[in-house]
């Protein structure tokens, strides 16, 4: 009955992408052989594969690959941190609400309605615009704080049924502290869905951060981020399409990979 | 009632049935005959091979298990039939009742439409007549509300009612053989009695193989009992005789642990 064993191509590709990301996170633009800030006005808008510029240069003569790699560093760092914050707050809140009496459950439902009515991204734009001064921490904090209900909603729904499980009830009857109960008996049961959620949320956060940068309210001015690169390339879309295509394709690639990983985890947990 | 007394071939005749998984023999050689109108109980603990033996009669074993041996349904060798011919036999000339009707019924379809589909496939009746037959069958199974239960979804019925519908589905094409695999195990004791009473009465037109670990339930309705252990029938005989004077130690063991204790008479 068992299907013949196939070579796990997908797992292999995802692992390689993961390793590549890690290497880029560590070395950044050094991998391109150029400094992402170094301008060279003699070499503006050089097409890809000219004079050691693998992906060409931009309107200020900066190496596109170097900026792309720096952008990845920034994107992954912000998305990971924002996901972590949303995960921590959302999971804790969801667990406490699921175990507690109806009051917190009511708050949960209210929040769910609220976030459905108010798209978190719009909220994030507003918050950051009001704060004015954008930076890594304010972006990460804002994205985390406006998106945590995504986690609490799922955790709340699943933990409700987990708290009815007999082994959790048995643990409850010993009177162990809530933290121990969560960590030892409830969280392990949430790992399958939480891991899927984390991966999808990470992809969402990449898009959200890029959108903020594109609007110019994300990363500090002049920073090499994919959103900023896209924004700056708007005037050269036809004359220098590599300026648009490079960050766009990079973003598509990382999101496709994240989604593939999410699907893979989801199927594996079934 | 006795198959040997008539000139008709027995409803089910199994000879030398052998089931193995890879090199491991699970059922070395099983022989069993069931006459028309007879209910035979196949009783054994879990892992005794009773369920795979029953499934092999309808050729429903997974690919990892291989079977050989003669299986005759009303004199016809069904072990030689192709898979597509076998599909016509299952649900038609062999009706099946399983332990958990909630997982054997498609939750998205009404009980009636499941019956109608089976009727249309095996009897080639027009849709309206098939629906009439489905309504009649469910009424015969004593499901409440002559029309209401036809349009009920499986989850709307109680456990006992679902099992009634399942028995209706098994009987609707007037099969020669009914295989009932632990049909009462998931039910409360009083509901078990109801389903047993229904099965005994309604299955009287067919031959019935009743598989269970509960010798008490089997003894309630079976004419004969076959006690299975480790893939072999260790003792077989009329129910009253077997209950009164079990000869094999395993039968005595089964009886001593059954609810109801040692004595049924």
């Amino acid at each position, binding site marked *: 009955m068992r299907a013949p064993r196939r070579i796990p191509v997908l797992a292999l590709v995802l692992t390689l992408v993961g390793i590549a990301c890690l290497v880029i996170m560590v070395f950044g633009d050094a991998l391109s052989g150029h400094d992402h800030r170094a301008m060279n006005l003699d070499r503006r808008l050089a097409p890809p594969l000219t004079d050691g510029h693998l992906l060409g240069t931009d309107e200020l003569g900066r190496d596109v690959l170097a900026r792309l790699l720096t952008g990845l560093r920034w994107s992954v760092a912000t998305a990971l941190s924002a996901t972590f914050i949303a995960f921590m707050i959302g999971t804790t809140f969801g667990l406490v609400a699921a175990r507690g009496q109806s009051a917190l459950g009511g708050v949960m439902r209210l929040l769910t309605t609220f976030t459905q009515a108010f798209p978190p991204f719009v909220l994030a734009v507003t918050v950051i615009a009001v704060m004015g001064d954008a930076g890594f921490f304010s972006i990460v904090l804002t994205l985390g704080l406006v998106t945590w209900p995504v986690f609490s909603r799922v955790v709340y729904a699943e933990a409700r049924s987990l708290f009815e499980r007999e082994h959790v*009830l048995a643990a409850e009857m*010993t009177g162990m502290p809530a933290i121990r109960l969560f960590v030892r008996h409830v969280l*392990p049961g949430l790992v399958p869905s939480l891991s899927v959620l984390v991966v999808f949320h990470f992809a969402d956060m990449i898009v959200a951060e890029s959108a903020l940068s594109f609007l110019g309210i994300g990363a500090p001015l002049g920073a090499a981020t994919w959103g900023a690169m896209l924004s700056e390339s708007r005037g050269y879309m036809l004359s220098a399409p590599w300026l648009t295509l490079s960050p766009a394709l990079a973003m598509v690639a990382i999101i496709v990979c994240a989604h593939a990983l999410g699907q893979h985890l989801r199927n594996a947990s079934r | 009632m006795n198959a040997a007394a008539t000139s008709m071939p027995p409803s089910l005749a199994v000879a030398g049935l052998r089931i193995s998984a890879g090199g491991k023999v699970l059922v070395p050689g099983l022989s069993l005959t069931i006459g028309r109108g007879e209910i035979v109980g196949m009783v054994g603990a879990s892992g005794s091979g009773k369920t795979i033996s029953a499934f092999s009669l309808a050729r429903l074993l997974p690919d990892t298990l291989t079977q050989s041996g003669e299986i005759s349904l009303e004199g016809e060798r069904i072990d030689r039939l192709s898979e597509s011919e076998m599909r016509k036999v299952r649900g038609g000339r062999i009706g099946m009742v399983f332990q958990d009707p909630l997982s054997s019924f498609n939750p998205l379809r009404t009980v009636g439409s499941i019956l109608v589909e089976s009727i249309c496939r095996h009897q080639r009746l027009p849709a309206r007549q098939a629906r009439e037959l489905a309504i009649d069958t469910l009424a015969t199974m004593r499901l409440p509300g002559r029309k209401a239960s036809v349009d009920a979804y499986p989850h709307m019925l109680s456990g006992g009612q679902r099992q009634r519908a399942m028995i209706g589905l098994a009987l609707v094409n007037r099969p020669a053989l009914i295989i009932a695999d632990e049909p009462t195990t998931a039910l409360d004791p009083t509901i078990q009695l109801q389903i047993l009473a229904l099965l005994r009465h309604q299955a009287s037109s067919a031959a019935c193989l009743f598989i269970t670990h509960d010798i008490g339930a089997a003894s309630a309705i079976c004419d004969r009992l076959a006690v299975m252990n480790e893939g072999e029938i260790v003792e077989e005989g009329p129910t009253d005789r077997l209950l009164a004077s079990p000869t094999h130690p395993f039968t005595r063991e089964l009886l001593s642990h059954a609810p109801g204790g040692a004595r049924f008479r």
Partner: protein
Amino acid sequence: MSSPLLQIRDLVIDYGKGADRFRALHGCSFDLEPGQVMAVVGESGSGKSSLVRAVAGLVAPASGEMLLDGQVLPPLRQRPPHTRRMIQMVFQDPGASLNPLHRVQAIIEEPLRVTGYGDAAGRKRRVAELMDMTQLSADLATRRPRELSGGQKQRVAIARALAMEPRILIADEALSALDFTTQDHVSRLLSDLRRDLNLAMLFVSHDMRSVRRMADDVCVIEKGHVVEQGAVSDVLYNPKSAYTRLLLAAALNPRAALSDPRLAEALENGEAVSEDALKGVMDIIRGGALMGDAR
């Protein structure tokens, strides 16, 4: 005179609120003394699980009184530690009642840790004792639940409950998922524990045979109402309600019960069984000899 260990008075349990309210139990009263075993019998959905879950503190009653040693018994999370440990429970599904990720040693040790029992070595000795008490061989300590049989899992669950040193053990259909041979072994274990530890028990079941073997008193619940209550010797030999009679017939001699055509017909039709049709059943029940554990 001192008050009984557990007193239940007019206990009513509701689920849901307002228009969706469903009354699972319409008032139930009983006393439980140390070492006394009370069986709670009824169909699935009859309210018997709700009753014992209320005693365990997992369900809050709508009204009525629960007293432990004369003190009001609050819901689980409001119970002080010494009250909480007095009532422990063994659940129905051996597959779900143990954390699949933990080893037997850790599962039985956990309550000891929580209650601050001894040091690591002391706990280890205590786990070994508990495993010995529940007839689990010592080499199972390093196994995970999926490597155990159903009976072994239930023994681990019993050992875990005993680690809290309870005075009342609730067994919520703790035997019904096991095969008959294992049921016999586990029910014998429970009987031994009750004798050795003077443990009171609430024993939920619909198997009349283990009720007969284990319990001193029995409470039969049908659709949330107590239909019969009293000493096992009274209720099981002289049952009053049709449900109890039928349950006994099913447990004692289903073959004889179904050989009565009136009863068989009523059962087949799924109807309420009339007093008349139950006459034959009473003969089976009064047959007496059938009642015993023939051993």
